[in-house]
Structure formats: structure tokens, C-alpha cells
């Protein structure tokens, strides 16, 4: 099976007291093993809701009202992500399906050292690695360009870019099949953004993970993605190879999106 994830007819609504608001409207999407898939769209397009639904982190008043999400972790039997619950879901998490949140959000526990936040997830899913932790954590940190001593630090002692890198290292700690990254470069300074984008590309090379990168920034997709899916008002309007999407957009909305990118009169090196 070459697909890690097969989304079919996914529907998500948010119930409000003025009726239901449909945030995701019947999405069909395959994620190929080993690729970097970009999900593009403006704010309110439903791309973050899609990510949250796939990660099974959707909270009330949001609710999945239809569709299936077949997940094919290596060495395990395929499951419908929307139908697993409790312990089964918990075991699947991180070792197979992992999450890279926005670094500027407070995703790291403020009162735990960085290394503790590696340890708890590793020990939860791979207790056999207890003895190798002392070597594993510095190696993971090194992979994203951080020194070992960062492990001894607390989140408030790190800059936004460093936090993002720590989150990246934790995300791949158990070599998951799929990492869903939600706006991984947003709210970072441009110079840091570039470093983060480079490290994300490295993750695929070094760990062979499949990455699904959600971003409103078309520049991110142009630099990083193999394929791009464009969302608009809860629908997928276009999915295709990154070159095709940028050079020859099929959907008028995609075209508009690409045209609205502010351009500098200077070519990036």
C-alpha cells in the first residue's frame, strides 16, 4: 500500500446556537508514504479543522458527521481513524500518528524540563528504550540543530524558534508513519522560518516520515511540499504536484491565491 492515509468524504460541523456551521465539506484526499503534502488555504478555509479532525483532537462543539479516514501504519493493520477509541487510539498516537503544533503556542508544559517531555512520550509507547534515553534525547535534539543542554532547560528559557525545533524533535522521537504539522512556521521571524523549513525537509530525509504541512503561507508550500492541496470554504478545490499547482493552477481560486502573494522585485538565492 503506497498510501499512509486515505480520507474519504470527511465532513466536520461546528454546532452553534444559531445552527450548524460546516467547516469541512466532503474531503477526499490521499497522503502518499514518504511525501510532504502541503495543505494551503486562507484563514477560515477549514484546513486547521481538517488537521484537528485527523488527529482526533476535535473538541465540542466540533463534530465529525461523515466520511472515513483509513490509516495504514507500517507493520500494523489498517484502521479507520474515525472509528478507533480509547486505548486503541492512545496506542496508535505518536508511535504511528504524531503532531507538530505551532511553536508559538504553549504546547510544551511550562513546568517540565524539555528532556522530561521527551521521556514521558517515549516511555509511554516504547518502554524498552528506557536505557538508551541518555543517548537518544541528545541525538534527537542534535538532529534539529539544538545542543544537548537544551534538554535540561525549561520551555520559558527557549526562544520561539527553539521551541519549534524541540517540538519537531519530539514529533519524530518514535519514528511515526505520519506527522501532521499545523502552521509550523507561523509567528516566527522570517530568518527562523527559513531554518525551520530546512529542518522539516531534513526530517523526511533522516527519519523517512510522511509530513502533512498545514500553512496559509504559499511560500512555505513552494519551498517544502511535494504536492499541494488547496482548501477553500471547507472544500478541496485542487490537489496536485507542487509545480503544477504553482505554474498551472486549475482552479480559479488557486490562481487568485497565487496571484495575491506579494512578490519582491528580487529573486531569492
Amino acid at each position, binding site marked *: 500500500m503506497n498510501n499512509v492515509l486515505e480520507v474519504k468524504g470527511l465532513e466536520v460541523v461546528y454546532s452553534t446556537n444559531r445552527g450548524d456551521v460546516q467547516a469541512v465539506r466532503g474531503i477526499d484526499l490521499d497522503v502518499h508514504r514518504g511525501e510532504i503534502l502541503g495543505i494551503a488555504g486562507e484563514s477560515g478555509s477549514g484546513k486547521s479543522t481538517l488537521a484537528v479532525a485527523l*488527529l482526533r*483532537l476535535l473538541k465540542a462543539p466540533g463534530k465529525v458527521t461523515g466520511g472515513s479516514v483509513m490509516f495504514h501504519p507500517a507493520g500494523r493493520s489498517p484502521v479507520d481513524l474515525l472509528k478507533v477509541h480509547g486505548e486503541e*487510539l*492512545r*496506542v*496508535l*498516537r*505518536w*508511535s504511528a500518528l*504524531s*503532531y507538530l*503544533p505551532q511553536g508559538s*503556542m*504553549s*504546547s*510544551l*508544559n*511550562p*513546568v*517540565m*524540563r524539555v528532556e522530561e517531555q521527551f521521556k*514521558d*512520550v517515549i516511555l*509511554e*509507547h516504547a518502554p524498552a528504550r528506557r536505557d538508551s534515553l541518555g543517548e537518544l534525547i541528545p541525538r534527537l535534539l542534535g538532529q534539529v540543530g539544538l545542543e544537548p543542554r537544551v534538554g535540561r532547560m*525549561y520551555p*520559558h528559557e527557549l526562544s520561539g524558534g527553539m521551541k519549534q525545533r524541540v517540538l519537531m524533535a519530539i514529533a519524530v522521537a518514535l519514528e511515526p508513519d505520519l506527522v501532521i504539522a499545523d502552521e509550523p512556521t507561523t509567528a516566527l521571524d522570517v530568518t527562523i522560518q527559513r531554518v525551520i523549513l530546512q529542518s522539516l525537509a531534513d526530517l523526511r530525509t533522516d527519519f523517512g516520515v510522511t509530513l502533512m504541512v498545514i500553512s496559509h503561507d504559499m511560500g512555505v508550500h513552494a519551498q517544502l511540499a511535494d504536492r499541494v492541496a488547496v482548501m477553500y470554504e471547507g472544500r478541496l478545490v485542487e490537489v496536485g504536484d507542487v509545480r503544477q499547482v504553482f505554474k498551472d493552477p486549475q482552479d480559479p481560486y488557486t490562481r487568485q491565491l497565487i496571484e495575491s502573494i506579494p512578490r519582491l522585485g528580487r529573486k531569492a538565492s
Partner: protein
Amino acid sequence: MTAEAPPAVAVDKSQDSAPVSGVRAWLSRHPLAAYAIRRFGLYLIELWGALTIAFFFFRLMPGDPIQTLIQTLQQNYIYNAQASAEIIARYKHEFGLDGNLLTQYLVYMQKLILHGDLGPSLINYPTPAQTVILRSLPWTIGLLGISAVMAWILGVVIGAIAGWRRGKLGSAIATNLSIALSHVPYFFVALILVYVFAYSMGLLPARSAYDSNINPGISFAFIGSVLKYGLLPGLSIVIIGTFSWILSTRMLMIPILGEDYLVYAEAKGLKNSRILTRYALRNCYLPQITAFGISLGFIFNGNVLVEQLFSYPGLGTTLVTAIQQLDFNTILGVTDIAIFSVLTAVLLLDLLLPLLDPRVKYWK
């Protein structure tokens, strides 16, 4: 015409540009030490301020207790001896009442700080007030300390769970009970406990701190008796205290549930129990440690009445007796001791905090 106030300027920022001194550089490299020093400095200021407030408060009180005392003394002398100015002056001196207010203050503070001397107690003359107070201090520290800590632990744990499981029946019951009862004075519960367990059922004693037939000392019988007699007064503090900690912990817990790091912990596939203890509880009990310190003075206030109700031989009872007898050195002394104990407890908690919460040392 000159300018009126130029536009208000953000204020908490320093304008001076003093050269970097060695001390400041050292402190900036040792934030923990800097924190401790700053905190201890604040403690000394608070202690001095509170003792000063208490002193002047009592000396400047309307109704002038001093005058009343002098009158009482004078009356006594008429029976005992000639009301000579000399004798009155001597008593005034002994009680620290000679000279003007400032002199009195300086003498009082000097004696207090250098010798721990609070002046003689009036009712137990010539026993010094500190001796009277020190007799009752252990009882209060034991009763109040143990019950306050128990209430805190119970309240924080139950409150955290109530927040965590909000929407569930148990949580709703705990929450609403707390809302109804958390501001009820301790002695209300004490009264009800006395009524039910002491009068109606006759199970537990309603007065005193131990069985007077048992000799005080380190013996099982005595300790058992202390526990038995302390149960009802202690319980009344624990019950109400727990409710109020439940409420405030729950209020702290609920915003934490919306924090990104909890979503992240869930995405990590950690067990629920682990998320509750390592992520949620760990972030919400820390502010409660500071709150515990601040609540101590308040708990002491309530405790005065509880002790009074149970004739518990602690500071509260000593205080009320002293007030009824106009024993002003003892009154002021009890207040001073209470101030000292509470401020010191708060200081110790605050110094402990950086060891538990890595963020503290950077706080202002």
C-alpha cells in the same frame, strides 16, 4: 505658559542609567539568589511595617486602654499603698508607657527585637507576656497548622479533579457545595459539630485541648487525648477550608484545560491519569502554594473564634481573655506573634516555590 504634564510615560521602567556594579552583575548571574535576597528584604520590610502598624494601632486606639490601665493601677494603689507619683511612674516604666509615643515605640521595638521581650502581662504580673503567649502558641500552631495543611491538600486534589471532570455529576455537586459553603465562617461548622457530636451524641469532648485527668507528657494516653479533643475544632477548619480550596483550584484548573500543552499531551497518547497529574495538576497547584501563604492570616482570624468556642488553650483564647482583662501587652504580643508566624510561613513558602516552579525566579 509652560507645559502641563507631558504625555504620561510608561512608568515601571527605570530612567536611570547607573553603571553596572559588580553586585548587580553577580545577582543577574544568580537569579535564584537574587530572588531569595529580594524576598527576604521584603519580609523584613513587611515585618517591620506590620509590627509598627500593630503598635500604633493599639496605642492610638479610641477609648485609650492606657488611661484605663492607669486608672486601674491607681485604684489598686489606693488600697495597697499611697498613690504616689513615684509608684505610678515605676509601673508606667515597667509597662513601657513612659515618655511620648515615639519613645514608647522605640523602647518597645528595641526590647522586642533585642530581647524578644513583650513587656509584663497585666493579669499575670509580673510574668512577661511572652511567657504567657508561648504557653498557648504550640496549641494554635498544632491545631491551625495541621488543619490548614490538610484542608489545602484535600481541597487542591478534589478541586483539580472537579475541574478535570467538569460536567460530571460528582464534580457539579462538589462545585456547588463549595460555592454555597466556602465563605461560611469556621465556627458555624464548629457550632454544628459541637451540637451533633458533643451534645446530641456525646461522642467527642466540646471543651479544652486534652483530658485534665491525664498528665501532659509524651505518652500514648496524652497524645490520644490531644487528638480526640482536637478533632472537632480541627474538623471545622478543615471542612470549610477544603471547600474554599476546591473552589479556587477548580477556577484555576478550568483555564488550564484549554491550554495547548494539554491538547499536546493528549495527542502524545499519554494516559489520562498521567495528563491529570503531570500536566494539569502540576500547573495548577503551584499558584495555590502562594495563595496558601496569603490565606494563613485569614485562617488565624477564623481560628480565634473556633478556639474561643472550644475553650482551646491556644493564642485565640489567650487573646480574647487578654482583651476582656485589658491586658494590653499580651494583646499586642499575641498580635505580634501572629504577624511574625504568618509572615515567616509566607516567606518560607515563597522561598520554597522556586524549587517547585522553575518560572518563579524570573518573576518580579
